[in-house]
């Protein structure tokens, strides 16, 4: 039974009837219901800066015919509101000649437990831990200028009612714990940020003092940056470390392989299916089925079970990521990649956990092969123009490489490249694939969704480093 119609003037049967009637002669569509609880507790400047609890509930009603999507959403779950939305959808889609595809794969797999992490740890103990973080970092010396730490926890319950009374449900926990530290030495200030998270309870990430590792890592990055010199400017060899630097894959390749941009032929990759788009040793997948990972989903936001989708295999482009709409229009199947930020947003094909798989080289081999270049270990964010294929990402920890040896740390700089050609410049793929720590959020069309990335160390022959030193 649905939990969404309690305390409303409408029951599940009546809602199902409205859905079926509204979606008559449509190709697709559903009523998506969502209850979202979230909490944020922030320590900053030695104080608990804010504690906020959010409770949001609503529905998004979608009707699809051909390429046209009509969407109406509201946080008023009532007969009148649903009726109004239904009228609005029917009014938009005047001529409908579609056939509703009732087939939707079922799944018995679950990639996370139905827990509510907010209630799984007391408010007091969260406050205490934030204070401990502050004390621990400030005890590292007077160079510690500022400490910020925060808990972000959420629990989302969704229910998808499709035409003819198919109901699909999922309950999704998600947590994130972040630490940021600013150090000051000889009038120079630098910052270091680190965090952990995923679809488990807070304590799975923080127990046995492992929160100290998060603090130590943020402190280490800031400390390295205090010694940093201006970054070089121009084209050079780049070695990327394993794990989080895979946001290069996310920006350079991932977005360009999302179904919508390829159906619309606005992606630089739209005519490259089956072609060599990367060096032979490169295999990239987008996997929604990793247990408890930030980007994992048991079912996507259209109800399709997620899967491990091979995007590039040994350098050849194999698949795009698809939601139902784009899959139907391109004559293929959904890959379980239909996602939305909330009931306020339409479904789009999105990434989950995007990963480059391991090759055979060691990181040392890569570094020792470079005469002049940089070694990039940690990153801030990135961005891509999917049409021209140009993408950027920002180093937050990087070093120069001179004659095969790692040299001084360099200041944060933007790296820029061209998506369709960058993976052909990957000359060595490492044997050390690592997942990111679970803190990524991907933005597309104003919607943010949690994602993961992974990669081994890689050597890129040529990339432009955006420093200030010529």
């Amino acid at each position, binding site marked *: 039974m649905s939990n969404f119609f309690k305390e409303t003037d409408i029951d599940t049967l009546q809602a199902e009837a409205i859905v079926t009637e509204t979606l008559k002669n449509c190709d697709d569509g559903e009523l998506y219901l969502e209850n979202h609880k979230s909490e944020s507790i922030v320590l900053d400047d030695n104080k608990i800066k804010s504690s*906020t609890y959010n409770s949001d509930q609503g529905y998004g009603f979608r009707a699809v015919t051909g390429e046209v999507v009509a969407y109406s959403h509201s946080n008023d779950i009532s007969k009148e509101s649903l009726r109004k939305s239904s009228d609005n959808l029917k009014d938009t889609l005047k001529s409908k000649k579609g056939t509703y595809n009732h087939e939707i794969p079922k799944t018995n797999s679950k990639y996370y437990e139905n827990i509510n992490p907010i209630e799984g740890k007391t408010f007091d103990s969260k406050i205490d831990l934030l204070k401990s973080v502050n004390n621990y970092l400030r005890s590292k010396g007077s160079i510690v200028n500022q400490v910020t730490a925060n808990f972000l926890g959420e629990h989302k319950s969704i229910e998808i009612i499709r035409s003819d009374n198919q109901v699909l449900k999922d309950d999704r926990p998600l947590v994130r714990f972040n630490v940021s530290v600013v150090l000051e030495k000889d009038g120079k200030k630098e910052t270091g940020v680190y965090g952990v998270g995923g679809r488990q309870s807070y304590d799975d990430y923080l127990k046995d003092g492992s929160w100290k590792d998060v603090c130590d890592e943020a402190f280490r990055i800031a400390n390295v940056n205090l010694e940093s010199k201006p970054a070089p400017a121009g084209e050079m060899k780049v070695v990327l470390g394993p794990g989080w630097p895979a946001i290069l894959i996310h920006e350079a390749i991932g977005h360009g392989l999302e179904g919508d941009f390829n159906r619309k032929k606005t992606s630089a990759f739209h005519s490259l299916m089956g072609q060599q788009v990367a060096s032979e040793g490169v295999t990239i997948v987008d996997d929604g089925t990793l247990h408890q990972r930030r980007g994992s989903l048991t079912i996507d936001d259209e109800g399709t079970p997620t899967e491990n989708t091979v995007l590039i295999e040994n350098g050849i482009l194999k698949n795009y990521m698809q939601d139902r709409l784009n899959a139907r229009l391109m004559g293929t199947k959904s890959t379980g990649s239909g996602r939305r930020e909330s009931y306020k947003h339409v479904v789009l094909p999105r990434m989950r956990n995007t990963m480059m798989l391991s090759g055979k080289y060691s990181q040392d081999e890569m570094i020792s092969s470079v005469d002049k270049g940089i070694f990039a270990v940690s990153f801030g964010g990135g961005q891509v123009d999917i049409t021209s294929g140009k993408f*950027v990402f920002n180093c937050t920890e990087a070093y120069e490489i001179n004659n095969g040896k790692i040299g001084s740390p360099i200041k*944060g700089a*933007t790296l820029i490249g061209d998506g369709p050609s960058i993976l052909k410049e990957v000359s060595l793929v490492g044997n050390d694939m690592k997942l990111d720590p679970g803190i990524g959020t991907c933005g597309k069309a104003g919607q943010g969704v949690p994602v993961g990335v992974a990669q081994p160390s890689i050597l890129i022959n040529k990339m*432009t480093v*955006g420093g*200030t030193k*010529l």
Partner: protein
Amino acid sequence: MIRDQEFLKDIASYCIENSKKLGATDVGVKVIHSVSENVSFRNKKLDESNRADSFAVNLTTYIEKKKSSINSSDLSKSNLEKLIERCIDATKITPSDENNSLPDKDLMSKEIRDLNLYDETHYPNDKKIEFLKKVEETASTDEKIVNTEAGFTENKNNFILANSNGFLGGYKTSNFSSSCVAVSRINGAMERDYEFGSTRFLEDMMEPEEIGKIAADKAIKKLGPKKIKSERIGIIFDKRISKGILSILASAISANAIARGTSFLKDQINSEVFPNSINIIDDPKIEKGLGSQNFDSEGVETNSLKLVENGILKNYLIDTYYGKKLNLKSNGRSGGTTNLYFENGTSSFKDLLNSEKKFLYITETIGHGGSIITGDYSVGASGFMVEDGELTYPVSEITIAGNFKEMFKNITLANDLEMKYSTNAPTLLINQMTVAGK
């Protein structure tokens, strides 16, 4: 239909009364209703229609100097009752902070002036569709344009902001916006560009043909870009992105960054930060202004502020909490700047382009490579090479880098300021930055 003030006031009062009953010593609350209708087109066909009807309550309760907040979209009293209880429970066990408080009573906004921010005109979806057809018709005239997308959004908002010191105020606002994205192609390589208009009143919207034409022209001009050599060069920022310099300034002079000591402009008040020809103003009381407001997000009266006068930094952007930390009174900037702009420069756009033999003219940046803490800046960019005052060829896959402190001191403004966004700047030249390319 947008809900009226009485409906919102009733919920605000309910929240304040109930919070007080449960032990809150102070309460602040905001109740918002917004209705938004969006239609989008792609390649001259309807692509998506989207109607949104959203409520929100943001409540903060104080018990002496302890504070906690809740947000909810469910306005039913049974739900609010539960959430208020939860908020009070959290407040009780949150450590106190001497700077937590409602704003001083004498700073609160006393009267609400009609700033002409609400146009009740409803633009039906059929009309939006007609508008978008014209946008795309014009955008796709040239055969080099292979894809067009266009959208029209109409937004109506109403809100009430109230606190337990007796402040209660709110008003309706509206927004109409339309955009066009055009994709051009030559020899298999594509470029994308856009144009958009955003106004409080429907009658002020750009003509659809103008939006389509600008987007298409820009996308075509970008075709066949070259990557240039790394060098030090003067950079001209197109108006579309020169306003970004003001957004950086706004973050760096927010009381938050100053009090926390994490701004590259800390301790720079009353110092020369820009060349002495430069004035920067934040004016909340511009009629029909996209950033206009009667009061800030705490209900504090907002008035026009000269942030920079003759190159000298004169004011921070101050809210109640960080103001107390800095021993300064709030100047009504909780929630940030309002209508922020550079006063016009003296040279014409043409003179600026001719002031040196060679420039790089940047029309777009990508990435978030600016640090407010260190002032270091490095972003991806695309634009055009300028030689002898003429745009000669498109440039892409390069980065531009520098440090804000130095960049600010090397700014020259053109005299082509337009008030098109909430933050506005004329075309702007920064002399000598590093370009990384080949």
